[in-house]
């Protein structure tokens, strides 16, 4: 149990996927203007990553590896992810149409979100057991949502702040990221 807790906390805080591994930047820069859509996006990403991870993990160990088709991992994983995102899109359109509209183009773009493919690949290359995979594939997108949420609260203020012309919009957002990254390094050694 101790191992899983460490894995969970380190994936969210110490090795945060956005602030230490730079993945998931595109949606952070694009979506994070409203806190409600940030949380909605985060929830969608958690669901997609968890679902895709379980599916691709099973696919790899019960089909690809036994058939010595490991080199097909990239193609099959990304197709599974694309299918999952389509599925989430359809569900959201039906049950949460407001959120579906708010997220707009960024929902299908979850397919090209580096975090999703990264987690599905790392589950294999790090040799995780089933439970480790479950813990990791939930912890990482939670960490992503955390940063996305914090960022959205700052971004709302940032849009109204006096920023030099050239820095307006994305460059100043990146500077904020730099500061957040610096703050998060304090978590090293937590577990």
């Amino acid at each position, binding site marked *: 149990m101790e*191992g899983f807790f*460490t894995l969970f906390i*380190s994936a969210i805080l*110490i*090795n945060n996927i956005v602030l230490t591994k730079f993945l998931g930047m595109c949606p952070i820069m694009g979506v994070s203007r409203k806190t409600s859509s940030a949380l909605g996006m985060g929830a969608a990403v958690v669901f997609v990553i968890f679902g895709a991870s379980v599916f691709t993990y099973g696919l790899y160990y019960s089909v690809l590896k036994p058939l010595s088709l490991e*080199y*097909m991992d990239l*193609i099959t994983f990304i197709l599974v992810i694309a299918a999952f995102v389509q599925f989430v899109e359809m569900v959201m359109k039906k049950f949460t149409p407001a959120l579906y509209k708010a997220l707009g183009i960024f929902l299908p773009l979850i397919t090209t979100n580096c975090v999703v493919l990264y987690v599905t690949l790392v589950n294999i290359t790090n*040799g*995780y*057991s089933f439970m*480790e995979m479950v813990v990791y594939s939930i912890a990482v997108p939670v960490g992503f949502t955390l940063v996305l949420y914090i960022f959205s609260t700052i971004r709302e203020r940032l849009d109204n702040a006096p920023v030099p012309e050239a820095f307006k919009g994305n460059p100043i957002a990146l500077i904020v990221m730099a500061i957040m990254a610096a703050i998060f390094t304090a978590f*090293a*050694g937590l*577990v």
Partner: protein
Amino acid sequence: MKKIIHLTVFLAIISALAGATLAFVNNMTSPIIEERKIAAVKTTLEAIFPTASEYKEISFVDASGTVKNAYEAVGVGYAFNVTVQGYKDVITFIVGIDGSGKIVGFKVNYVNDTPGLGSKVADPEFANSIIGKNVGDKVDTISGSTVSSAAIVKGIDAAKAVYQSLK
């Protein structure tokens, strides 16, 4: 209905072509990649077990999940590639145990902890305190880098467990 069949067939053909292309590239490159994988570890294996004639990777069962690879230096002993969680980042090391249960080799391959503290696990003093001990002996941690060295001690215990299962 016809449209869906058309779409599925098209996608299937593209995927088949993709698969064939990759199978070709894979055939071409996999022997080279296999060789490189063993070559990377080979220098370490040769340093730990200089008298062995052959080194090969073997399958094993490990409950802890930290032992990533096991190698056999045929007729001489076994070496284990272990990855544990250190203070900030993972630590990977190789530990070699000979036929009589003595630790004959220890080398840290990757450590990214505090320089001067956690990084001490890569120093020769720590390695010297481990090499020569038997499987039943206790390995001491380093004061000042408790987290990193304790993690390694646990990793060595896991390797010992795999060793016992292989004997």
